[in-house]
């Protein structure tokens, strides 16, 4: 069996370096620096040196998800991936791309588009880094057809808290050799390691995308129309429903004729106030849809997951609790995958916390969960960012303990679980 390395040494057996950086050359001292510092490494080795420091470390991409999960306590060092933002190797004919973890998704998409390719992945935060998107486990409406980032990552290079640089996977799309460390980091929110590099499977850019919109769709109709779509063979790439607007948007990607034929099939199958959006309308609809999910400072944003479907009880409970608390709750739902994002505005922290507490109880009662992505200042003192711990939490604790025994990476992020 492979022996566990000493936590004080690097993979090549050299003593672990203390953290040094252009930003703070004095950090090698054993005394902690008086104020938090930021390091921006440009290579994996620099990154390794940056995390092999003392005290708590916060990993940062473009900073779009620093509020996701519970707040990190006492981060002494922020390691920014802004200097690791390059495409290392794009192989268009292999449909793979090797990138550094700090590359922004929109930058990567622009690069791929020049070759008629894309990453079929549309989280609301297109300016986020690819490493950050893996660590946050984020997904957008098109997950229905293409899966999440976990399905698109084929290789990863991680830097762990002890300075170990470890790879899993590789450059081939089919590969079962060894454990999948990239999946381990999916949703880890910076608590296990830094995503230094990723290899991704890319897809051909579809020739066309079409969007069919149905208006005045109440909860029951949204459920019925969604099941009509999942029972058909017309393969929508996204189905989204918004409340209180009560619109259902259905997206199709494909060849020009193919997407048109499927959109036409949807129009004949669905009922209600139907319209196909033109390209400009569709673009602005999906832009505003993403903005609504991201929300703004001062809002509270809950992300919930349940089994696929729109649970009328949950939607009803949300508006009832929101009314009682005197807040406004904007719901965005991916009914075919059971994802809900709720943006809460208005009133005060106490009202936000009350809504989170009450609606979380409703969601947990049907086997789902609610986490906080953002909260109005003061909410943290009144409600936890995470709800009921999953049955596998003990394994997560042991994983955390084995990779980060000193609890240095984003301590507190999964409080109260670990």
């Amino acid at each position, binding site marked *: *069996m*492979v022996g*566990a390395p000493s936590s004080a040494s690097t*993979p090549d057996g050299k003593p672990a370096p203390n953290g040094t950086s252009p930003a703070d050359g004095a950090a090698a001292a054993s005394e902690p620096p008086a104020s938090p510092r930021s390091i921006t490494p440009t290579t994996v080795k620099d990154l390794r040196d940056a995390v092999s420091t003392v005290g708590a470390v916060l990993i940062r991409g473009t900073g779009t998800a620093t509020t996701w999960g519970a707040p990190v306590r006492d981060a002494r060092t922020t390691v920014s991936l802004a200097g690791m933002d390059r495409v290392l190797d794009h*192989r268009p*004919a*292999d*449909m793979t791309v090797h990138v550094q973890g700090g590359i922004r998704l929109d930058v990567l998409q622009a690069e791929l588009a020049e070759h008629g390719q894309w990453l079929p992945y549309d989280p609301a935060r297109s300016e986020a880094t690819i490493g950050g998107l893996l660590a946050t*486990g984020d997904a957008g409406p098109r997950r229905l057809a293409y899966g999440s980032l976990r*399905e698109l990552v084929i290789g990863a290079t991680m830097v762990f808290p002890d300075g*170990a640089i*470890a790879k*899993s996977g590789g*450059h*081939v*799309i*089919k*590969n*079962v*050799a*060894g*454990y*999948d*460390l990239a*999946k*381990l980091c*999916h*949703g880890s929110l910076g608590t296990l390691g830094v995503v230094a590099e990723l290899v991704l499977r890319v897809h051909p850019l579809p020739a066309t995308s079409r969007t069919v919109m149905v208006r005045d769709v109440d909860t029951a109709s949204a459920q019925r129309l*969604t099941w009509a779509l*999942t*029972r*058909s*063979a*017309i*393969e929508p790439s996204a189905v989204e429903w918004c409340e209180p607007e009560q619109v259902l948007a259905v997206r199709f990607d*494909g*060849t020009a004729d*193919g997407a048109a034929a499927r959109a036409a099939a949807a129009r004949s199958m669905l009922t209600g106030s139907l319209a196909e959006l033109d390209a400009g309308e569709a673009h602005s609809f999906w832009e505003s849809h993403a903005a609504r999910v991201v929300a703004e400072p001062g809002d509270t944003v809950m992300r919930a*997951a*349940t*089994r*696929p479907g729109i649970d009328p009880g949950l939607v009803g409970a949300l508006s009832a609790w929101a009314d009682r608390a005197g807040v406004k709750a904007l719901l965005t739902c991916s009914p075919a995958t*059971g*994802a809900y994002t709720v943006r809460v505005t208005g009133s005060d922290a106490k009202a936000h916390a009350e809504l989170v507490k009450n609606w979380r109880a409703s969601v947990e009662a*049907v*086997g*789902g*969960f609610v986490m906080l992505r953002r909260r109005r200042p003061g909410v943290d003192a009144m409600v936890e960012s995470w709800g*009921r711990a*999953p*049955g*596998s939490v*003990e*394994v*997560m604790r*042991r*994983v955390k*303990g*084995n990779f980060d025994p000193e609890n240095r990476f984003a301590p507190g992020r999964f409080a109260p*679980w670990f």
Partner: protein
Amino acid sequence: MELQAATDRRRALEAVLRDVIAECGPSLRVLSGQAERRAYETDALTAHRVLPGLVLLPADRSQVAPIVRACLRHGVPYVARGAGTGLSGGALPAESGVVIALAKLNRILDVDPDRLVAIVEPGATNLSISAVAGEFGLYYAPDPSSQVVCTIGGNVAENSGGAHCLKYGFTSHHVLAVETVLPDGTVAVLGSDDIEAPCYDAPGYDLRGVFVGAEGTCGVATRIAVRLLRKPEAVRTLVADFPDVPSACETVSAVIAAGIVPAAIEMMDNLAIRACEDAVHAGYDREAAASLIIELDGHGEECAELFDQVSALCSEHACTRLRIAADEAERAAIWAGRKAAFAAMGRLSPEFLLQDGVVPRTRLAEALAGIADLSAAAGLRVANVFHAGDGNLHPLVLYREADGQGPAAEKLAADIAELCVALGGSLSGEHGIGVDKACSMPKMFSPADLTAMDRLRAAFDPSGLCNPGKVFPTPALCGEARAGAYQPHPLEETGKIQRW
């Protein structure tokens, strides 16, 4: 000393047996006789054999946790087993260990035609899920060649693929949640928390993603929630023959470069084509240097449009004959020919070894040239049948044990696997590492990589009793001479399963 250790092991097994009988009652089937246990000494990698100390067949999934706890209490290693069709020795028992055979836990518990989810027991066969889901126009996408008999629990352990995973992805992409007896004896659902209401999202680390493909080293699955897909409206299939291997490889690249993702692209070289045609008469051209089977599926008009493009690309790349399946019967015949390749190899050689390496798709021609060179240098023939779309090779090293060619064949097979790694690929595309390729892992992964993976394993299984000796290179395994000569699995001899 050794005698004492053997006595201790026997006592530990007796203690496990006593505990599980007390806790599970008479419905737990126990196989303790040597002849009964003999049937579980190997999986489809038949060159490796270890007689287990005890075989337990739970009649109900609630019996699995007491078995794991008893093994933990008495320090006895264990391995879960489905149909035993694995090709890397992943279900090889530990010496004096327990085999937990899950064949009786084979129910399809629920199919939800709206949510497109099925909840199944681990011993359900891959094809039985699609059979039940088929009543609703649905199917389970990953299609390993042994799908008639292989179990979903084994597919989860190995992250199984199949010919159609080019478009639809692997087991990992189709599993939403796994109810697991963890090696600490507790039961937890990985993925969403309620196995009966599985969610796409789960909070925290993606433990489901780690478990799928961990080769049974992270616990024993007792219920699995899988995604189902709607059957495609249209399926179109063709066979294209080429005058040389590079032309076929270039065609594969051209199809991909045109922005088309076929459901499957399979390739056979001349040696494989001849063997298949002689055996099955599927209508292949015995003179073709290489043939591609390309299948597209999807919405009717879109599928037809792309299929025409693929046909044109084949013609542009020196294709000598294009055969388009006219109906479902012809399509089935084409696939039957492809899947008969294993049985057909017996016509070419009394023995062969099978490899499972992967190379980046653009290096296929280079890999095949390299294999031809290695083959010539070793003086042994190699037939190639493989999943060209995703670069997953299945070279068959043909040899005669009677002529003393065994060691040379084993070396050639290992050299081919390592050639794949040198070309930027992987040791295994779908068969797993198991015991078969554990010793080659350092060719692909650094000590730091393996240490990180072992830390993860230890988080699931601090005691190290859950399917030990797999995936990771160990001195005990890798210090010994390689024992890799192929012997057919009984199910292969009866034609129930194929090897790739």
